[in-house]
């Protein structure tokens, strides 16, 4: 990554695009606190990003789930890490992504699409104000992808900020507020859909 400096406004839907190796995932990981920048600071809603962890939700290529647990068991564990004690909240999150919270099957037996959805549920159950999503549509069929897009649009309308990395920017052209493009570790351009279409 080289000299990336940017500021994003709250409540908007940002899509981050670029070639492989451009540094998109790295940028997301840095904001989430997983990678350390060699210089510079990262502020989330005015605080150091390491202090704002409960305000962020992160979803990666990997599912970040335990294979031997069911959906609820997984979420129950993660909820403890966020000091959340309510099953109802978890069930709501699971339903919101289109899965059944009463399903006792272990995640190991899920299809890729189901895993992706549960992974998203894990990122949103604690009601974060900033969502960092890395390729949420990569293993998902087109209909499910549309559902997820609608879900995310809904969250943006609720006032949440979304920063999403994807190679399939097309499906987001109606929903996204801004497109950011990275190449070789640098931020190359920012544009709105209107500008893109024009």
């Amino acid at each position, binding site marked *: 990554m080289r000299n990336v400096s940017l500021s994003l406004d709250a409540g908007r839907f940002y899509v981050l695009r670029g070639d492989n190796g451009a540094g998109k995932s790295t940028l997301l990981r840095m904001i989430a606190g997983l990678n350390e920048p060699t210089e510079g600071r990262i502020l989330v809603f005015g605080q150091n990003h390491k202090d704002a962890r409960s305000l962020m939700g*992160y979803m990666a*290529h990997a599912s970040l*789930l335990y294979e031997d647990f069911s959906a609820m068991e997984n979420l129950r*564990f993660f909820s403890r890490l966020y000091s959340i004690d309510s099953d109802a909240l978890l069930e709501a999150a699971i339903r919101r992504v289109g899965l059944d919270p009463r399903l006792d099957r272990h995640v190991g037996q899920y299809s890729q699409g189901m895993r992706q959805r549960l992974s998203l549920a894990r990122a949103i159950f604690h009601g974060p104000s900033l969502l960092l999503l890395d390729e949420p549509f990569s293993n998902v069929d087109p209909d499910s992808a549309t559902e997820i897009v609608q879900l995310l649009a809904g969250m943006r309308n609720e006032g949440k900020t979304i920063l999403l990395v994807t190679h399939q920017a097309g499906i987001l052209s109606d929903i996204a507020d801004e497109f950011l493009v990275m190449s070789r570790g640098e931020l190359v351009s920012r544009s709105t859909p209107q500008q893109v279409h024009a």
Partner: protein
Amino acid sequence: MSLSITRLASVNLRKDLRLEWRSKDVLNSMLFFCLLVVVIFSFAFDLTVEETRRIAGGLVWTAFLFSTVMALNQSWARELRNGVLDAFRVSPAPAEALFLGKCIGNFLLVLLLECLMAPLFVIFYNLTSVGPVWQLIIVFLLGTWALVVNGTFFAAMSIRTRNRELMLPLLLLPVSIPAVASMVLATAEVLTGESSPLLQIKFLAVYCVVFTTACFLLFDTVLNAE
């Protein structure tokens, strides 16, 4: 509910125990490994009862050391599958809670192994203790904790290395040498009844305190060393 370290540690511990109970990967291989080690050692060393009491300390702790290393190598494997460790790091939960939970989980696992191996040693070597057994138990508890706390720490370090399984014993063994020397000596002292292991026990206690504190303080740094 607060984010207190002990409560979170117990959450981690229960999760680990439950997951292990479901898959039993580590447990099964460990049990078989114990048996193999004891059998091999009994072929390698053919001793009188008196001689055995003297070196039993070394035999037993070498066997435990091998088993501990094998168990520890697995300790972080579950968190690395599917990148779950990242989910933990992204959450507001403090890293020390994860460390404490893992240490206790590994401690219980290794203790279980020792309880299973000890009777095998007694049988194969006709081992009986001249000194009081409660002293032996203290030595085992302290010694095991010393190995496990350093082992869990170095296993976490090894995550970011190329030869993960090899790195762990390479890092753990040199640092643990004083503790192992102490455990072996103490065990021999209790078994032969020749002298009091009190000095060793005090030493092991100091060792445990020093390294538990150091590993605790450095764990966050090591976990986020990226």
